[in-house]
């Protein structure tokens, strides 16, 4: 009985030692991971700072103005180009201008094109098609 208890105690000792070791190594592993991720974060921060600086350099007004002068047909904004919302004309009622024009020309009415009334063999005259 005593021997069994001793064996059990030794087993428990070895087991707890192993467990403690595994936890210790896991901790070391995770702390290494943390350091690594911190380094990554630092690197990303640096990269973001560089990109932000680069972006600020690219959108500096001097450059944008030069590009706009070269590639766009825009003029500097004049004060008379600024209007109040009230001064914007009301939107017109939507009108089908082309349709009206056609109507005015009388093109929408049924045409007086003579219809070929002689029946054909296959019945594919344009007028018979629906």
């Amino acid at each position: 009985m005593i021997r069994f208890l001793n064996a059990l105690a030794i087993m428990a000792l070895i087991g707890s030692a192993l467990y403690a070791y595994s936890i210790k190594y896991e901790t070391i592993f995770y702390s290494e991971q943390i350091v690594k991720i911190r380094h990554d974060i630092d690197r990303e921060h640096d990269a973001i700072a560089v990109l932000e600086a680069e972006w600020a350099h690219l959108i500096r007004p001097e450059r944008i103005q030069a590009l706009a002068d070269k590639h766009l047909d825009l003029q500097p904004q004049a004060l008379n180009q600024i209007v109040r919302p009230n001064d914007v004309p009301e939107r017109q009622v939507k009108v089908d201008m082309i349709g009206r024009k056609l109507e005015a020309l009388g093109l929408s009415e049924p045409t007086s094109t003579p219809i070929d009334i002689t029946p054909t063999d296959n019945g594919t005259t344009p007028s018979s098609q629906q």
Partner: protein
Amino acid sequence: MHVTTPDDGLEPKTKAAGAELPRWRRILRDLFRTRIDKSASRIRLVATLFSCLFLIIAGRLIYLGTKPDPQSLKRAVSEAVAAARPAILDRNGEVLAADVQNMSVYAEPRRILDKDEAVELLTAVLPDLDANDLREKLGSRKGFVWIKRGISRREQQEVFRLGLPGVNFQRENKRIYPNGPVAAHVLGATNVDNQGIAGIEKYIDGQGLADLNGAGFRLTPENLNPINLSLDLHATYIVREELRKGIEKFKAKAGAAAILDVNTGEVIAMASLPDFDPSNPVDALKSDNIDRMTVGVYEMGSTFKALSIAMAIEANKANLASRVDAHTSLRYGRFTIHDFHAQNRILSVPEVFTYSSNIGAARLALMVGVDGHQDFLRKMGQLDRMRTELPESAEPLKPKRWSEISTATIAFGQGLNVAPLQAMMAVGALMNGGYLITPTFLKRSAEEARKVAVRVVRPETSEAMRYLMRLNAEVGSAKAADKKGYFVGGKTGTADKQFHGHYASDRVLTTFMAIVPSDQPRYLVLAMMDEPQGLPETGGYRTAAWNSGAVAGAIVERVMPLLGLPPRFDPPVQPFPDLPKLGVTALNNNGSGAH
């Protein structure tokens, strides 16, 4: 355990043992036997020896503690490395200055085995290094020397592949200014160690950043809050651009322009030409590149008449209906004060302003007297050095002896040199209802500004001055800046420059101040040009209305919509409600009957 006392157990035992042992063993045993009665001297000797030993150790410890550290590498590196600085943003969060990381390569000369080989290899990889200089550095007995700062990734790889012992890399911060010379004078510059040497950069260091770095805190860009300036990047760019165009057109030597928020004292935009690129700090120190807004002092010319008239009104010596004799020139011994646009008649106070009458302004100032004049100018901050966040500033140049002539000439802007931003502060106080607010380059709200503001003139005086400014833009010399919809008020100033002790009329300094809008003032615009030339299209005139006025007008037109101030389409009803109290009854509506 049982402790035996020498009397009972030990004594007889040792004696018995001593009797039977050989002689040499007895001597040896006596040597190691401790008996309080016999070995006192020996014990004392041992105690002394040990005391000496401990004293030596203690002394050595104290010596090591007080001795300056043998410079450890880590410490040397952290001291030499360029410190992190907070980013500088404009009022809308656009980047004006930021840190980026780069690599620098350094060496520990003591650990380098073959110096000649190291020099040869390093100069092969980094061709712009000077071999002699490098050999000298590596031959020194220092623990740490920089080889090259700010190397590219490719260079780093190549140096790494050399595999030289004692050659290492260190990550450093490098300051960059993405907008080049825009706002350069406000930002200032930093040196290679990332310490501020001018402008806001130096101001930041003065706020404790340098101390933190010096104390060994490792500051990274992430744990530093960015600094928000009052500047608007786009407005600053436009101001600089319009000023540059104006200087080019009128072949001026130099110029400056700024926009001041009169209610908060914030400087919204500021430019001074010629300027420099902050990435190249050597240029920042050239004398031609000084900040003409804060470091240069100038005779502001007729813009100072606004102060003289405000002073007379504030002292109740005059109101807007008063009349001043500008019939003849004002004579003081060998000095004679003339008018540039001489009317040779009695002028009303508004006419003194719109015709820019030197005689009228001088007479108004003399009504207040020399002491009153000095007190008023001191109250308006024109006689003392103005301190802003920028470390660079200039003391006004005052007359050595302030006589009546001084008062008469200073009344129209000659004889007192002030920094243009200082003059803007005073005119801003006349515009904003009478509060003198020291300009700032940091963002702040109107409430914060009110806390530091000092009332210098009554609200009615301020309103009278706004009315005069507006009148001058409608019928006077400031028409150039009267942009439709902004109800601009303005004042020109053309001062002859002193040249070999004389005022030379062909060398002028022209200034223009515009207030936008006059009824509810928001922004004060100043444009200034040093020695502009007359052009055929200006009829050969080099006066302020033609050059500085045009620049200020262009700035108003381009910048105001950008600052969220839309043009108004109807002129304000009753822009100056208090005017009847000030003696103006007939001219109540936009000064239509001024002449």
